[in-house]
C-alpha cells in the first residue's frame, strides 16, 4: 500500500467557542502525537480505524492506541453534537430506543447513569451490538469498536469536557448534552 498522508485534524462541524480548548488543544494534540508516533513506520499506511484495532492489540494496547482512539472518539463526539440539536429522535431510531429501553426518558436515564458512574476518565456510548441497541461506558480512550460493536452516539466524560463550564458537576453536563445531541447523525443498521 502506498504511504498515506499524515492524519489531519478534521474541522469542527460547527463553530462553537467553548470547544477551542477541547478541539483546538486536546483533540489536536491527540492527532499530532499520533502522527509523530507512527511517522516512518508501517502504521502510517493504515486507516485510523485499522490503526486503532492494531494498536488495541487484543487488550494490551500499544502506546499509539491512546492517541489514535482519542482522535476517533473526539471526531465522533463532535458529530454527536449540534448547535441545533436536542429534541427527540424519530423513525426507526425512535422505535428501536422505545423497544430496547421502554422510552426515550428511560434511555436518557441509563445513558446518563453510564456517564456519571464511569469512575475517572472515559466515555458513555449508545452502540449497536448483536443487532440490538445497548449502552456502554468505557475508560480513558477505549472505543467500542475494539469489541466489534458499532458506536451510534457518544458523550465525553473526561473532566476536560466539562470542567470550564460545569466544574465538578458532571451530572449537569450530562443533562445539558440532551440539548445538543444530534439525533440526525445516529445511523442505525
Amino acid at each position, binding site marked *: 500500500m502506498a504511504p498515506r498522508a499524515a492524519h489531519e485534524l478534521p474541522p469542527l462541524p460547527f463553530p462553537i467557542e467553548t470547544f477551542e480548548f477541547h478541539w483546538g488543544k486536546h483533540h489536536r494534540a491527540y492527532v499530532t502525537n499520533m502522527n509523530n508516533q507512527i511517522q516512518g513506520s508501517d502504521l502510517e499506511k493504515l486507516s485510523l480505524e485499522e490503526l486503532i484495532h492494531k494498536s488495541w492489540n487484543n487488550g494490551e494496547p500499544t502506546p499509539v492506541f491512546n492517541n489514535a482512539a482519542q482522535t476517533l472518539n473526539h471526531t465522533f463526539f463532535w458529530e454527536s453534537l449540534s448547535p441545533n440539536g436536542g429534541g427527540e429522535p424519530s423513525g426507526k431510531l425512535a422505535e428501536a430506543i422505545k423497544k430496547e429501553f421502554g422510552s426515550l426518558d428511560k434511555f436518557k436515564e441509563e445513558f446518563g447513569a453510564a456517564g456519571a458512574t464511569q*469512575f475517572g*476518565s472515559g466515555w458513555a456510548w449508545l452502540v449497536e451490538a448483536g443487532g440490538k441497541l445497548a449502552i456502554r461506558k468505557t475508560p*480513558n*480512550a477505549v472505543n467500542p469498536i475494539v469489541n466489534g460493536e458499532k458506536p451510534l452516539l457518544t458523550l465525553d466524560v*473526561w*473532566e*476536560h469536557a466539562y*470542567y*470550564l463550564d460545569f*466544574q465538578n458537576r458532571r451530572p449537569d453536563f450530562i443533562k445539558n448534552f440532551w440539548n445538543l445531541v444530534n439525533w440526525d447523525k445516529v445511523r442505525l443498521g
Partner: protein
Amino acid sequence: MLSCAASAVRSGPSTLFRGVGLRGMATGQDLKLPALPYDYDALAPVIIPEIMEIHLTKHHQAYVTGFNNALAQLKDAEAKTDPSAIVGLQSALKFNGGGHINHAIFWKSLIPPKAWPAPGREFQPPSGPLEEQIKATWGSLDTFTAKFNAAAAGVQGSGWGWLAYNPETKGLQIATTANQDPLQPTTKLIPLLGVDVWEHAYYLQYKNVRPDYLKEIWKVINWKEAGDRFAAASKV
C-alpha cells in the same frame, strides 16, 4: 476571607446520619472530610483558591460521601452475608475510599511557601536522610523532579504521581496510580508525596497543559512532610 474547610463537613448525608447507620445501628465511624492545613488562597499563584475550594468541598467531599454510602451498604450486605452484594460494592469502596486516602495525603503534601521557617525562601528542598536518599537514587533533586514529572504527565486519563518508599528494597521510587487507586493498599509502596493529576486538580488554571502545573507545583511541595513519612517508613 478564611473559608474554613471545617464548614464543608456540614454538607453531605454522611454527617446527617453521623453515628447512626441506615438501619439505626450505631456506626460512629463514618469518614470525615479533613480540614486543609492552610487557607484556600495560601498556595496562590501556584494553585488558585478557586481550585482549592472546589477540589476540597466538591471532589474530596464526594469521595467521603460516596465511601460512607458504600460502607453503609456493605454493612447491610455483611449482615445478610450476601456475597454478590459485597463483591458488587468493591469498586465503589476502592474508588471512593481511595479518593479520600489520596486527597488526605495530597493536602499534606502541599504547603504555602510562607509557612516555611526561613523567610524569603520560595522553595524548601528536602533535607536530611531523605535528601541523601534522593541524591543516591537519582543523582540530584532536579533529575528526580524531571523523572517524576515525566511519569505524572504520562498518566493516561486520571491518576496520581507518587514519590514512594519501597519497604522491600528499602529504596525510593517514583510510582503512578490510575484513577483513585490508593498506593499502599494496591502496591504495598508507601507514599511519601502525592501529586493529583486528575484534570480537576489543575484545569481551571492550567487548562490542558498538565506539564506546566507539574513544573509549578514543586514550589509548594511539603518536603518536611515527605521527610517525616520517610523516617517513619524506613524505621520499620
